[in-house]
C-alpha cells in the first residue's frame, strides 16, 4: 500500500515535469515562428492563469450548482454525516461540508480548494445502494482527494493545458496571417533548416493541444489511483472500496446531473462511455477493472 502511494505521487510529479518541458519546447518554437519573444509566453501565462483563477475560486460553487446539489443536513442524513465525520477524523482534516444530489444513480465527488473549505457530494442513490463498508470506502476516496489537494493540482494542470492551447492557437494564426516571421529579413542561409523548423512548428501547433489534453487526462487518472490507495489506507479495508466500485460501475442508470465538464470529478465516470484504447487515452478515469485489481493487490 505504501509503495503504491509513493509510486503514484512520483508518477504525477513526472507528468507535471514533462508537461513543463513540453511548454518550454513549444515556447521556443513559438518564439522562432512568430518573433514575439518572451512577451507571447507572458501573455499566454497571464491569460491562462486569469481564466483558471476564476475556475479555481468558484469551481466548487459552479459544480454544485450544475449538479443540482443541495446541502445535506445532519437530521436528514445522519448516516452520511457519521461516515464523513469518522473518516475526517481518520484523515486528520476538518469535516467537509456534505451535499446530496437527488438522483438514484450511485456516484460521488469532492470539490474545494483546501481541506478547510472542501465539500463532499453524494447522490441519494449511493446512500441507498451501498452498505456501510462500501460507503466508507467511497468517502475515504473523496477524503483522499481533499487531503492530497487534488483540486489544486488539477487546476495547475488545467492552467498548463490552457497555456499550450493559447500558444498553439496564436502560432497557427501567425502562420495564417503573417506567414511566419523573418520573411522580410531574408536570412537565406537559414533557408532549409528554417523551413524544416517551421514545418515542425506547424505540426506542433496543430498537435500540442491534443498532447496537452492527453497529459492532463493522464494526471487525472494517476490521481484516481492515488486516491484509491490513500482511501484504502484510511479505512484499512481495500475490499470495501473495491466492492463499491464494482457496484457503481455495474449500475446502468445514468446520472442526469453530470456532463462532460463535471465528469472528471466523480468517483466513477458517470457518462458510462464505451471501452477501447482510444477512449482509454481520452478518459478521465482508469478502467474500473484496473482500479479493483490494484485494490485487491493491497
Amino acid at each position, binding site marked *: 500500500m505504501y509503495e503504491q502511494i509513493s509510486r503514484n505521487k512520483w508518477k504525477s510529479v513526472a507528468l507535471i515535469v514533462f508537461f513543463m518541458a513540453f511548454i518550454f519546447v513549444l515556447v521556443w518554437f513559438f518564439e522562432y515562428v512568430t518573433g514575439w519573444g518572451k512577451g507571447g509566453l507572458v501573455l499566454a501565462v497571464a491569460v491562462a492563469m486569469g481564466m483558471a483563477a476564476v475556475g479555481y475560486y468558484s469551481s466548487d460553487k459552479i459544480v454544485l450548482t450544475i449538479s443540482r446539489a443541495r446541502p445535506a443536513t445532519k437530521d436528514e442524513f*445522519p*448516516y452520511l454525516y*457519521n461516515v464523513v*465525520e469518522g473518516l475526517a*477524523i*481518520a484523515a*486528520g482534516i476538518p469535516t467537509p461540508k456534505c451535499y446530496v444530489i437527488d438522483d438514484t444513480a450511485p456516484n460521488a465527488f469532492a470539490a474545494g480548494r483546501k481541506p478547510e473549505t472542501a465539500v463532499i457530494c453524494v447522490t441519494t442513490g449511493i446512500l441507498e445502494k451501498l452498505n*456501510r463498508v462500501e460507503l466508507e470506502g467511497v468517502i475515504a476516496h473523496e477524503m483522499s482527494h481533499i487531503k492530497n489537494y487534488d483540486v489544486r493540482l488539477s487546476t495547475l494542470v488545467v492552467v498548463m493545458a490552457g497555456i499550450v492551447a493559447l500558444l498553439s492557437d496564436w502560432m497557427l494564426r501567425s502562420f495564417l496571417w503573417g506567414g511566419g516571421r523573418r520573411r522580410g529579413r531574408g536570412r537565406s542561409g537559414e533557408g532549409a533548416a528554417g523551413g524544416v523548423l517551421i514545418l515542425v512548428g506547424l505540426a506542433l501547433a496543430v498537435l500540442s493541444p491534443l498532447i496537452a489534453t492527453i497529459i492532463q487526462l493522464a494526471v487525472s487518472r494517476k490521481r484516481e489511483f492515488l486516491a484509491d490507495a490513500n482511501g484504502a489506507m*484510511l479505512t*484499512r479495508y481495500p475490499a470495501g472500496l473495491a466492492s463499491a466500485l464494482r457496484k457503481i460501475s455495474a449500475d446502468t442508470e445514468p446520472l442526469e446531473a453530470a456532463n462532460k465538464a463535471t465528469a472528471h470529478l466523480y468517483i466513477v465516470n458517470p457518462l458510462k462511455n464505451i471501452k477501447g484504447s482510444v477512449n482509454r487515452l481520452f478518459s478521465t478515469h482508469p478502467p474500473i477493472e484496473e482500479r479493483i485489481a490494484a485494490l485487491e493487490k493491497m
Partner: protein
Amino acid sequence: MGALILLLVIIGAIALMAIGMYNSLISLRNRCDNGWSQIDVQLRRRYDLIPNLVETVKGYAKHESGVFERVTQARAAAVGAQTVKEQGQADNVLTGALKSLFAVAENYPELKANQNFLMLQEELAGTESKVAYARQFYNDTVMKYNMRQQVFPSSIIANMFGFKPREYFQIEEEVAKGPVKVQF
C-alpha cells in the same frame, strides 16, 4: 578569514537544521496529544448516548432489567477508568453489554420501528467507528513521532532534549480476538 566565514556558514546551517528538527518533533508531539484528546471526545460522546438508549429500550422492554444494569455498570466503569489499559478493557466490556442490549431489542418489533431508537442506534454505530478512526489516527501520528525520534539525524536532537517515544493504543489481544458472548 575565508575559512572562518566558511566555518560560520556551516555552523549556521547546522543550527538552522537543528531548529527545524526540534520544531518538527514538537509539532508531532502536539499532534499526538491532539489525537489522544480526539479519542476522548468521541468516547465521551458515546457515554452520553448510552443513558438515552437505555431509557428508550426500557420504554418497550421493561423486563430486561439485567441487561440495563450491565450496560449502566459497564458505562460507569468506562467513564471512571484511569489508565489507557483500564480504559481499553472497560470499553470492551461496554461493547459486549451494548451488543446484548441490541440483541434484546431484536425481540421487540415496535422498538425496532421506533424512530428515536433507530436514530440512537445509528448515532452509536457512527460514534463507535469514530472512536476506532480516532485511535487509528492517534496510532498513525505516534508512529510518525516515534519514527522521527529514531531516524538519523533527528535522533540526536531527540536524545539531547529528552523526547520519549509514545505508546501505541492497543486493544487487549484476548478480548479483541475472542467472540463477544451474548447472554439473555
